[in-house]
C-alpha cells in the first residue's frame, strides 16, 4: 500500500568543463603576471575595454590595440556580500565592486578588501560610491583573476 506523503529525491549535478581563453584573454593574464592591467581600444568608438576583448561588441570590429590602464580607479558601485551559497569561491563577508579604472571606459568587477570587513557599519564609512581604490597584487601569480588580490581604498 503506497504511503500518502510525496517523496523528494536529492542529488547533485556536476558538469566538468575546460574553457579556452584564447589569445586576448590569455595575454590579459600574462600581463597580470607582470602587474599590468591591460585593456583593448576600439579603433571605431575609441572605448577602452577592461577586461579586453578581441572585438568591440558594439562596433563589431577587431580590436588590436593594447592599452595599459591605471591600477587605480573609482568605485562605481559595490555590494557587501554576507550570504553563503553553493560553490562560492570567496569567504564571506566580502565586497564585490564595479571599478572604473582610470583610462578605461568599462566597469571592472573585482573585490574591495584590505580593511576590516567584519562589521558592515564600519565598512560603509570607508567604502564609498565614487571613492578611489587601488589594486593590491598577490605575491604569487597563478594566472587568474586573483593575481590582483583585491582593490583597497585609497586614503
Amino acid at each position: 500500500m503506497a504511503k500518502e506523503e510525496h517523496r523528494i529525491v536529492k542529488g547533485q549535478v556536476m558538469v566538468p568543463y575546460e574553457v579556452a581563453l584564447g589569445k586576448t584573454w590569455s595575454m590579459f593574464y600574462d600581463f597580470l603576471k607582470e602587474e599590468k592591467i591591460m585593456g583593448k581600444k576600439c579603433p571605431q568608438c575609441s572605448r577602452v575595454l577592461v577586461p579586453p576583448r578581441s572585438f568591440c561588441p558594439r562596433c563589431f570590429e577587431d580590436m588590436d590595440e593594447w592599452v595599459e590602464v591605471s591600477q587605480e580607479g573609482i568605485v562605481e558601485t559595490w555590494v557587501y556580500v554576507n550570504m553563503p551559497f553553493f560553490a562560492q569561491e570567496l569567504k564571506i563577508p566580502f565586497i564585490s565592486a564595479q571599478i572604473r579604472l582610470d583610462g578605461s571606459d568599462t566597469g571592472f568587477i573585482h573585490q574591495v578588501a584590505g580593511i576590516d570587513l567584519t562589521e558592515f557599519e564600519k565598512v560603509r564609512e570607508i567604502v564609498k560610491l565614487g571613492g578611489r581604490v587601488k589594486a593590491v597584487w598577490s605575491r604569487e601569480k597563478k594566472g587568474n583573476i586573483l593575481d590582483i588580490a583585491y582593490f583597497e581604498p585609497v586614503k
Partner: protein
Amino acid sequence: MGNAVAIIGTGQTKHGRRSDVCYPDLVREAVTAALEDAGITLKDIDGIVLGTMPSMMEGVSSTHFYFAEAMGSVGKPVLKVETCGSTGQSIGHCGFFWVASGMADIVLVVGSEKMSEGDGQATMTTVFDPFFQRTFAAGAPGVFTMQSMEWMYRFKIPEEKGREAAARISVSNHDNAMDNPHAHIRTRVTMEDVKNARIITYPVRLLDVCPASDGACAVIFATGEKARKICRKPAWIKGLGFRGEEFFYGESDKAIWMSATEAAAEAYRQAGIRNPLKELDVAEIYNPFTYQEMIFYECFGFCPRGEAPDYVLKGTFLKDGELPCCPSGGTLCSNPIGATGLIRLAEAALQVTGKAGARQVEGAKLALSHAMGGVDQFNGVTIVGSEL
C-alpha cells in the same frame, strides 16, 4: 503592421512550494487551465513553444523532452526558446512570431520553473563567466544591489527616500497579492516590517526580495481570424521588443539601462504609444527587487530619470493610482523564473479582457508586460490591448 495576433487563453498554476506534484505534472496543470480558458483542446494546437531558466536548474536539461506529454506536444512541432530570466517574454514573442509568420494558426506557449528543486542562486552564479567575474558573483541579490546603489548615487537619491519608496513598493505588492489566488506569498506586510527585515545585501532586505517559487504558466496565441471565431474577448498583441546588452557586467550603464529603455521604446513604437504614463492602463513589471522596480519605471518612461521614488511616494503606481503596477502582486510575491515573464503577459491579457477577478483594474484597455534576464543583461516587453 503585419498579421494580427491575439491571446485567446491563459492558465497558471498555484505558485509556491509545490512538492505535491512532480515537475511535468506542474506544467500540465497550467496547460490544462489555458486550454480550458480558451475553450479548445490539444487537437486545435498547431505548435508548442516552451522555455525555462538555465536548463539544469532542476537537475534535468533540455526539458522539451521531459515535458513532451505534459505539454501535449507528442506528434506536434515544438520550439524551445530560452533567454534566462526574460525567457517568459521571449517565449511569448516566439508564440507571436510563429502565428504572425502564417506557419501556424494556434500556438501554445508554456513557461515553467520548479525553484524548490534546485539551488537558484548557485545556478545563477554560473551565468557569470568562469574566468573573470564568477569569483566575485553573489547570485541575483548581489547584482541587483550593485545596480540599485549605482542608480541612487547617479541621481542623488537620498538613502532614506530610496528606502521609504522601496518599502512602499513591497507593501503594495504584498497587498495586491492578497487578491491573486495564484500568488506564492500572500501575507500583508507593513512599512515597519520591510524596514526591519533581515538584511540580504545592504540596503536590500528580505522583504525587498522575491521568493523562489514553483510554478507554470501557459498562454495560447491565435491568428486574428481564429481569435475572433473562438474567443469572445481576445487580448491583442500591440507591440513587442527585446534588447540585450554586453555580457560582462560593468560594461554598460545599469543606472540608465539601455536594454530596458530600448525594449520598451520598440514596443511603444509598434503600439503607437507616446505617453506611456497616460496611455497605459496597467503595467506588469518583472520586479524581483523593490529598488529595481523603480529603475524600470524610469526606463519605461513612466516618470523622469531619478524621480521614481517621488512618483512611488505619491501613489502613482498603486492599484487606484494613475498607472497601477503589478496588481497581481508581481514577481516580488511569486517568482518561478522561467514562467515569470509569461505570467506578466498572462496577467496583462487578463486585465485588458476584464478577466482579472479581484485584481482587476477597472476599465483597463492597454497593458504593458515585461521580463528581465541575465546579469541585468536582457529586457523584453509586450504590450496587449482590448482592441486591435
